[in-house]
């Protein structure tokens, strides 16, 4: 049961209020029609599963309904950083 700081509400809330939307920083290709099957396949299906720091999108679905990014250690489950959409993480893997 995580305790997650919502950067919009400005306080920690229980995990039940949130929804995980998987890996962050995956940008939809600007021109999908010119992507090869491989490029499109990579965008759609291939995801990281790192041991250690992972950047994820979470949605404060029962609260302010805003999406934001979370950097989480997949070993200890510590949340290292929370940042808004469009921002870049400060804590990154070596």
């Amino acid at each position, binding site marked *: 049961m*995580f305790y997650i700081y919502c950067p919009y509400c400005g306080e920690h809330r*229980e995990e039940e209020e949130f929804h995980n939307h998987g890996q962050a920083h995956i940008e939809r290709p600007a021109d999908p*029609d010119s992507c090869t099957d491989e490029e499109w396949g990579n965008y*759609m299906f291939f995801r990281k599963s790192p041991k250690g720091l992972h950047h994820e999108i979470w*949605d404060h679905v029962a609260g302010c309904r805003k999406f934001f990014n979370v950097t989480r250690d997949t070993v200890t489950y510590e949340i290292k950083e929370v940042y808004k959409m469009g921002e870049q993480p400060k804590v990154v893997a070596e």
Partner: protein
Amino acid sequence: MSQKNRLQSGGRIDRSKPLTFTYNGKQFEGFAGDTLASALLANGVDIIGRSFKYSRPRGIVAAGAEEPNAVMQLGATEATQVPNVRATQQELFSGLVSGSTNGWPSVDNDIMGLLGKVGGKMMPPGFYYKTFMYPATMWETYEKVIRKAAGLGRSPNEYDPDTYDKVNQHADLVVVGAGPAGLIAALTAARGGARVIIADEQNEFGGSLLSSKESVDGKAAGAWVAGVVKELEANENVIVLPRSTVNGYHDHNFLTIHQRMTDHIADRAPNGQVRQRYHRVRSKWVVLATGAHERPLVFGNNDVPGCMVANAVSTYINRYGVVPGNELVLMTTNDNAYRTAIDWHDAGRKVQAIVDTRKNPTGALVEAARERGITVMTGSAVIDVQGSKRVTGVSVAPISEDGSKVTGSVKKLSADTVASSGGWSPVIHLSCHTGSKPVWNEDVLGFLPGKTVQKQLTAGAINGTFNTAGALEEGKKAGLEALSKLGLSAVEVEVPATTEVKESKAMALFHVPHTKPTSQAPKQFVDYQNDVTAAGIELACREGFESIEHVKRYTAMGFGTDQGKLGNINGMAVAAKVLNQTIPQTGTTIFRPNYTPITFGAIAGRDCGALFDPERYSAMHKWHLENGAKFEDVGQWKRPWYFPKAGESMQEALNRECLATRESIGILDASTLGKIDIQGKDAREFLGRVYSNAWAKLPVGKCRYGLMLKEDGMVFDDGVTSCLAENHFLMTTTSGGAATVLNWLEFYHQTEWPELEVYFTSVTDHWATMTISGPNSRKLLEELIDGDVDVSKDSFKFMDWKPMSVAGVPARVFRISFTGELSFEINVQANYGLHVWEKLFEHGAKYDLTPYGTETMHILRAEKGFIIAGQDTDGSVHPYDLGMGWAVSMNKPFSFIGKRGMQREDCVRAERKQMVGIKTIDPNVVLPEGAQAVFDPTASIPMPMVGHISSSYWSACLGRSVALGFVKGGLDKMGEKVYYPLVDGRIVEAEICSPIFLDPKGERQNV
């Protein structure tokens, strides 16, 4: 005297309050303040169960949560049965009914005992894996016998009459354990202004002090405890939780606490009271002051009733006034356990000998024992026990200084009780729950909490600090540290004075040697609950299991409900010895939640019965109830399924509803459809990106059907979206998809296209939606419209919407149809939904206005070949598979969601499964949904399957069955045959046809 082992005075029991209870059908008496275990011991009950595998008689071993044997079935009635309750933790109350869990059919005479007597050869470790795995068909038979013999207890067959609930707590500091360390930590933090929760599994706070003769602060320890508790209870920022086990320690300092509120009062909670409460606690900091469990030693026949952990014997004497025998032999590796012999002696019963495994113990307690004239045999061990239903004597022999072998001749002593102590194991369970690996400490001879990422502090015996003075000091330090971490100021707390006792060094001995090798020696039990012996662990190691995790799984060590609280470390020591390595080299021990078993009642809380899952109702729900609707669950909505009249079968009701709609007029409550209000200058652009068809030119006043796809091109939702004004749209979604679609729109808006100016707001609950459908629907609508609104064919066309007042209520009316009939969807503010609904019936009676539910809706739409997203789609079909290429606009400038995905190689290949109509050759056969299609019914099994039926109904309007289904390349196979072999052996022959069974030209809705 009935309580033959009860002392005349002393202890924390109330001799003026006798309580009667039942154990295995016999009545006994105990006192207020007893546990079930202390009362049984007071009455001289030796056998409280039979062992899991060998069915050997077993007695009470410990006095707390670590008890492996005295696991009881409680409950005076069927409905109040509770399995797996440790007698050592169950407070006695008048009328308590208990029974042995183990020992079917009876504890004193057990048929499985036969198997046990034949001995270990027949049931070595891995026995279940080796014997019962094959043949697999026999497993069910084995399982019944083994489960019953294993004594896991049983759950009640009737509803639990009691109330349980859950409470969400938030704290600055949770203190786990209310012994000396926990109490002073809580006191310190509370004085500093922190919000504190202190929980302890016992009925009284005090921990080790409850069973000790120590003085604290110059007075009896109990008096000091009472003072601290009083101060804590008076502080409004402190929640004091006795009888509350902290069962789990989870991520980000989240703890679960199982509080038993009335289990000590009666079989059922007194009226209105909550029986058990499950606290879900988020705490900024945690102090673990969980204490330690004493380890018994592993020696021959150490499971015979009368063999106990040393400190438990002291607890029964000092706390409960019970001496559980007459002649004691104490075996110890340390000074601390000498207290037990002293307590026994001071209670006036005989101590045969203290058998100390060390050559030359010298501590103060050793001297105190000698002063009392107690025989101390040094450099010796109890290697074997005599007796079967109760200890009758022991074999004592000198052992080598390292404890590895017997060095001299064996001497027999008579005794009925053997107390043993191999030192203390810190209770590190909670620290392990979050994934922290414990660390072996050679001074403590036990595992200590390891590195953690939790905001966790520890104090007292969990750190290996076993003396009261040290525990108090550490508790205060933890309290102050918590205050500082919380940003609160330090406070003055005086550590009360205690008496210091000098102890000599303990010996690292776990497994006592025998004159014979372990494999031939009498059984030396490591894990009582799962009947794991030292020989079994040695065998497992010899068979190649070197990792302690594998040994544990192979032998089942630590897998009982006690989680190996007493046995795990001894087991690791045995394995380490065989593998010729140290304990830390052998591995570590990890404990998982829950610390002790928890009832399902506490986990379920109030989420049961009518509150198990929310039921969502529309504004017209009351009418549906009053008019006999049968309901169907759609998500959490209760939707009318059909409205049977008296005596009607379901099919009869459906036939009537369908015909009435096609012939005159039917009405459906469509309020559950998801509805999203969309506004902004880029709303159109956004719709064009999330729907597969075009939206740029939809005029104000018009509605359009759209398919929503995922990036892979597959359909996931559909609905009609209407243009309310230039920058204003009302989107509808499926009833089940409402939340998902809104989330989907927000996700793309917030993460991909924040530059688009558009807002989304759910209005699902705001509008009550009722659809009137059928040739007479216009006439009914016209009657109810206030003022001059033209709804005629030409001025209110199919796929138009108009604002108007219906039955006096402002409404938005949409001329859209899911039945293929002339239809109007009336939307009014939900607080007026029932009013308009009832007015429609008032005026609709002359047209035989017929309410219908979801099933008739499904039939009517299937006759028209309209899909239901989620029934005719399953995440693997794209619009072209559905024959709905007309709903895809490949020329839109923006590459809409799903466009690129649909063009992947797999999506454009020939012979994809495509949706078609399926007409059975025998019109009376209604194919089951899910039936698999084959082209060649004579093919050998397994036949190549080419599709399945997704929707299938009896159509009263057509007088035959209709079905929609998927067939490989189906769209190019019109008129061809396809077969459906059914589970009952029939093979149904059918023809592939257009999915539009009725009115293919759409003339009925264009009137």
